[in-house]
């Protein structure tokens, strides 16, 4: 038996984060046991190092472990996005956990393990690796969702997430089995090279799509999302909403483009339906929400719908637009949830719409920052959300899906209702109760500053990032 050559370079970002996670676990056991302030700093350092390693590896094209791991421009772009997401989560967690007396090493270690899973998903070249990394990520997130043990909602969220996630994983695994049965391989490229269309492969693909649909919370597999987003600690919600979605999209796009490149089956009609359903359900239900975390949960469902528009359009334009949108979406969503997190009171209160009435009086800066994130979510220039949507819908129009683009734009109009309503509450309503205590969190403020800078830079000078995203997907399409 011959062992495959070990390629450290291909795994470098994931290995850095993994090593940091181990280090955090070890340090957690060493004194000083009472103070944990150094652990998030170490975690952050690891993530930043991984981030730097992606830029250092830029331009790399490595296939390692018999094609199990593919580290190309595409993987690196998404790993960059994931590192940003994880970094923002760690920054937002520090004071959030400290105020609630729940600092611990395992929290950060779990965040880092989940990040490793996400990073590997972006570089997975084989369905087995996709599944393994998906599970690594998911199991960590299940635990994290229930991290507030004393809180009933947290436990409920973890339970639901776990049960439904296991359900979806079962479908996913069954899908892999069927695809293997039809083609004799789990390698994405070799599946793509196999010819012929049979119903076994089709069913397998459908089941894979179910697994991904669950992770990206596409309709009709989205129902866990609102409950989990609300029940889980808000910092974990940020990770679920940004990092895990980015990772799932990373794997989904690679599977769609490498393994199912239209020869065997035509999935665009299905994606069209999923995109429309996801946008519409997300936006329409978000209107009826009075809990901000719930509203943002449905909003993030709707944004998945927009990204599915880009996937439907396909090609370098469509996939590139999705990549760019993932970058914008990560900054915007992390920022919006971040403000909510900073204003959340100890027992998880203070996240309803009424609590935000007159917020601009007491927290002028936070209200302004949140307004900017909301405007970016609506898609108002010159913020990143506008450019992202412009390229998504532009790609749809280029590929001839004018109707889809129209539905997307109409959805954006509906969405502006609930985003603007929040701005109206913050600026034009009288405060109903005493304003929430002033949130002073240096790390949280830093996270918001980074996210805001990202949203503005991506909105004002998007061209280089668009080019990067296009360049990242182009090799996949060959």
């Amino acid at each position, binding site marked *: 038996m011959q062992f495959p050559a070990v390629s450290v370079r291909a795994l470098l970002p994931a290995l850095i984060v993994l090593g940091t996670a181990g280090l955090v676990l070890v340090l957690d056991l060493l004194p000083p046991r009472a103070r944990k302030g150094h652990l998030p700093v170490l975690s952050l350092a690891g993530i930043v190092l991984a981030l730097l390693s992606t830029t250092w590896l830029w331009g790399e094209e490595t296939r390692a472990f018999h094609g199990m791991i593919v580290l190309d421009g595409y993987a690196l772009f998404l790993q960059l996005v994931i590192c940003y997401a994880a970094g923002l989560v760690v920054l937002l967690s520090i004071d959030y956990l400290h105020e609630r007396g729940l600092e611990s090493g395992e929290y950060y270690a779990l965040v880092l393990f989940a990040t490793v899973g996400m990073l590997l998903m972006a570089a997975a070249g084989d369905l087995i690796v996709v599944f393994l990394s998906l599970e690594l990520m998911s199991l960590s997130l299940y635990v994290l969702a229930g991290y507030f043990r004393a809180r009933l909602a947290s436990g409920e969220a973890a339970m639901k997430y776990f049960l439904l996630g296991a359900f979806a994983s079962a479908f996913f695994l069954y899908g892999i089995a069927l695809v293997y049965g039809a083609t004799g391989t789990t390698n994405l490229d070799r599946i793509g090279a196999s010819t012929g269309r049979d119903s076994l492969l089709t069913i397998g693909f459908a089941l894979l799509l179910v697994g991904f649909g669950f992770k990206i919370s596409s309709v009709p597999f989205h*129902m866990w999302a609102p409950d989990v987003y609300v029940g889980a600690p808000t910092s974990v919600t940020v990770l679920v909403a940004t990092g895990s979605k980015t990772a799932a999209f990373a794997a989904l796009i690679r599977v769609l483009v490498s393994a199912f490149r239209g020869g065997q089956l035509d999935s665009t009609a299905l994606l069209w339906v999923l995109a429309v359903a996801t946008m519409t359900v997300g936006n329409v239900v978000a209107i009826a929400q009075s809990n901000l975390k719930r509203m943002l949960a449905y909003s993030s469902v709707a944004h998945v719908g927009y990204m599915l528009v880009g996937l439907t359009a396909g090609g370098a334009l469509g996939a590139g637009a999705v990549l760019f949108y993932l970058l914008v979406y990560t900054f915007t969503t992390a920022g919006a949830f971040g403000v909510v997190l900073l204003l959340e009171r100890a027992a998880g209160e203070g996240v309803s719409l009424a609590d935000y009435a007159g917020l601009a009086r007491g927290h002028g800066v936070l209200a302004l920052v949140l307004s900017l994130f909301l405007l970016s979510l609506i898609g108002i220039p010159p913020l990143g959300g506008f450019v992202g949507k412009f390229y998504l819908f532009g790609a749809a129009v280029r590929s001839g899906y004018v109707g889809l683009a129209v539905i997307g734009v109409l959805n954006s109009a509906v969405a502006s209702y609930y985003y603007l309503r929040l701005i109206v509450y913050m600026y034009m309503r009288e405060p109903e109760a005493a304003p929430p205590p002033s949130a002073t969190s240096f790390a949280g403020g830093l996270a918001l500053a980074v996210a805001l800078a990202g949203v503005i830079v991506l909105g004002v000078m998007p061209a280089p990032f668009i080019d990067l995203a296009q360049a990242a997907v182009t090799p996949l399409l060959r």
Partner: protein
Amino acid sequence: MSTTVWLIPACPLLGALVNMVFGGALGRRAHWVGVLAVAAAFVSADAVFARVLDGQVYAGELFPWIVAGSFKTAVSVQVDSLTAVMLLVVTGVGFLIHVYSVGYMDGDPGYARFFAYLNLFVFSMTMLVLAGNFLVLYVFWEAVGLCSYLLIGFWYERPAAAAAGKKAFIVNRVGDFGFGLGVMWLWTALGTLDYSAVFNSVDRLAPATATGIALLLFMGACGKSAQLPLHVWLPDAMEGPTPVSALIHAATMVTAGVYMVARSHALFERSGVALEVVAWIGGLTAIFAATTAVIQTDIKRVLAYSTVSQLGYMFAAVGVGAYAAAVFHLVTHAFFKSLLFLGAGSVIHALGGEQDLRRMGGLAPRMVPTAVTMTVGAAGLAGVPGLAGFFSKDAILAATYAGGHPGLWSVLVLGAFLTSFYAFRLLFLAFFCMPRMAKETAHHVHESPAVMTVPLGALATLTALAGFAVGIPSGAGTPFERFLASVFPLHEGEGGGFTAYALLLLSVIVVAAGFLLAWLMYMTRAVAPNAIGRPKTRLHTLLLNAYYVDRIYDALIVRPLYAFSVFLARGVDLGLLDGVVNGLGRAVVGSAQRLRRLQTGYVVNYALTMLLGVVVLIGFLLAR
């Protein structure tokens, strides 16, 4: 030269910005910023003028502005002799009026705001004149309109002022609509908007196309320069502070139309018909407004109608191809009309806000500098020989006659008679008749401070000397015409001989007749205050109401449009569209509430939904 040229608009722009941002802190010192900014612009304009006198020209580009497909345009400027003359007038008269405003606006709560707007206007107007292509011209054409709107409505708490500002803006929109269309048509026809490129290639235009473009551009000029039928805004614009009336609504902005037509004369000449239209609109406006001015009792409205009338003269001159004469009249008119406005402002200041000629009189002994300078101004407007207005008006009349437009010429001669009459009527009623104001007011009459009378003196000197300096024909045309010869080619072999002298004599007779009539009516016997301006005949009533143009517009355009708007707003918008939109909104919210109920919170339900999704997904893919 480039730096000096850019300094001309840059200084007032900087002044405007400083007064806008720091106006509150500057308070009473705001005028230092405003006046110095315009003074610097004036000095730069002088330097530019000196170089143009040496025969230099300049064309420069600030930055490429709009690049969209084949449409490329830059923020570009050009300086030739016409530009240099206009720059001198704008910054020079502008400077004097800024100085005058220091006294006139003293104590106004919006002091800094006033100077900020005034500086902004000078910036926009100099850029309008400097523009090197039609798009930049159009942008600053709109910018001066905006400044005019802001300054007419400067005392916005007065409903009349706010309404007058709106009226000016809306009437100008009508004209500018045509102007914008003309610019677009020009681009589609020639593919360029640069002056030199356009004027060099007008021969490529079909005469009909040239006519269409020229008339559309002239529509904009009609709005900006208050020509029939878009003149209605200018008399109302007198609600603005008097320095504004002098600067914007007499000396500079309202002449932008004349400048534009003169600048584009190659285009208008290509058409022929357009020139004829320009000439006749100008002539008709001249006589129309002059007859109206004869009857008015508000001192500023007399001057406003007079401005409309004099602008008509300028358009008539442009229409018969006497461009240099038109520009010369533009310059002299800027001097004597701003002088008259500032003098009127001094009178209004002295009488505590009184503008009605019926309650003035006998001011001459109490306000000697104002009376003397006003006399020079009125004589200049009337065209008394020796003063600037005489030379410029005579040049227009001579050109009209020589150009073979006897009908137009006779209209303009009649207008000259009326001009002389109303100019002296105003002078006599205000300064030389018996005092007719209330005792209390009469007691408080005082001469204005030096900061106001010195600009009056300067403008009076210009009015007295400008004609002698550059307006006397010698050899080929006047010195003024020779200076502009690079822009407007000199006409050969005109003037001189018996006809010229006969015309000159006729001009003098007409002026004298107007003076005599005014003297007989207002000086030989005491005039009862209520006898002035009281309608005696139908004609009188018609003139007093300015031919009812405002009411006709109201009945024909404003009211039907308003009724239609009300129908659209109440019936269509509120009833139909709002109903549909609100209905849709309610439907979305309603379905949101219903969809929300699907989210039961039970894991079993969620899992069932997922299972359903799986079945649908597989079915969908297999069915294809």
